């Protein structure tokens, strides 16, 4: 799994936020966030993660899992892998063309699932139930 610091940096960039903006919105020092992103600090306390999750529009649980506070249950892992695998299939199918108007550049699992569902609707194929 991607390390916590680079995951946080990718998340912030995908939302188009500067360290200063995150500081203002999440009330967390920008120097501290920078150190976390560079891997110089351990993942912050779950309370801080809760504020960052709201700023980055991601589920709190997701940050807790990446930070190592929680373990993703096997069912959730299987579901995530299923969606990722199906999305990869959709992305590489040359007969299916798709485009999005995104806020930022980060494609959440929810968005990937939506795109796969649209693929299933148009192609009459089933990827999520059977696996790609």
């Amino acid at each position, binding site marked *: 799994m991607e390390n916590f610091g680079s995951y946080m940096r990718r998340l912030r960039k995908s939302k188009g936020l500067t360290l200063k903006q995150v500081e203002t*919105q999440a009330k967390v020092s920008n120097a501290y966030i920078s150190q976390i992103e560079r891997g110089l600090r351990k993942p912050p306390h779950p309370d801080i993660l809760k504020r960052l999750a709201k700023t980055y529009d991601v589920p709190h649980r997701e940050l807790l899992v990446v930070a190592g506070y929680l373990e993703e249950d096997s069912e959730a892992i299987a579901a995530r892998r299923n969606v990722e695998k199906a999305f990869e299939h959709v992305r590489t199918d040359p007969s299916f063309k*798709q*485009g999005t*108007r995104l*806020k*930022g550049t*980060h494609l959440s699992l929810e968005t990937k699932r939506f795109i796969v569902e649209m693929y299933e609707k*148009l192609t009459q194929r089933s990827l999520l139930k059977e696996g790609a």
Partner: protein
Amino acid sequence: MELLTGEIEASPIVGFCKSVISRHTETWPPKEEALAEEFVEWLGLKTFLTRDKLIELCLSKRVNLSFVELPPELRGFNCSYQDKTEVVITQHETVLGADLHNISHEFREVLENGFVELGHSTLGAGDSLEVRAEHFAMSARMMVVAREIPAYLDTVSNAESTWVRYLGFGVLGFVGLVYLLSCVLLPHFEEIESQTNRQRYIRT
């Protein structure tokens, strides 16, 4: 082979792409403004259209348009498979004019697929379709109002009372200015709205 040609020509989108290519062969690729002008005319867009009317217009070009609950980071989505094309727009758009902007943006991406199929991509090296589609969407909204201004001016200039005419021109000028600004600034308004929602979420 004839059947294949027939199938291709049966698609209104490919038909539109072909006619655009034929009109702009000399100066390919066309500017986004020129493309937007042709698109607005082709689809029959107007300033004030209900969602039902937009769905009807798209359906006339064999594009299924729907307004649904989308994942938070998505404003619009388009996809094509064989002869089927879908455009999906978020149903929670709070910025005025955003539906038209989103639809135009998605159509621009669909049209690009058509141009590529016909061997006439409009994108050069380093060009971003996302950026071009935003430019196209802004231009399309401007073209929509530009097409309607003469009719409004005509109506106002036919008013009998002088003060009604002046008032009419004043209102038209003000509304036109606000509309044009909204076309250019819509992405910024959306970003502000998105930030405000995030702040509200943080506060609650």
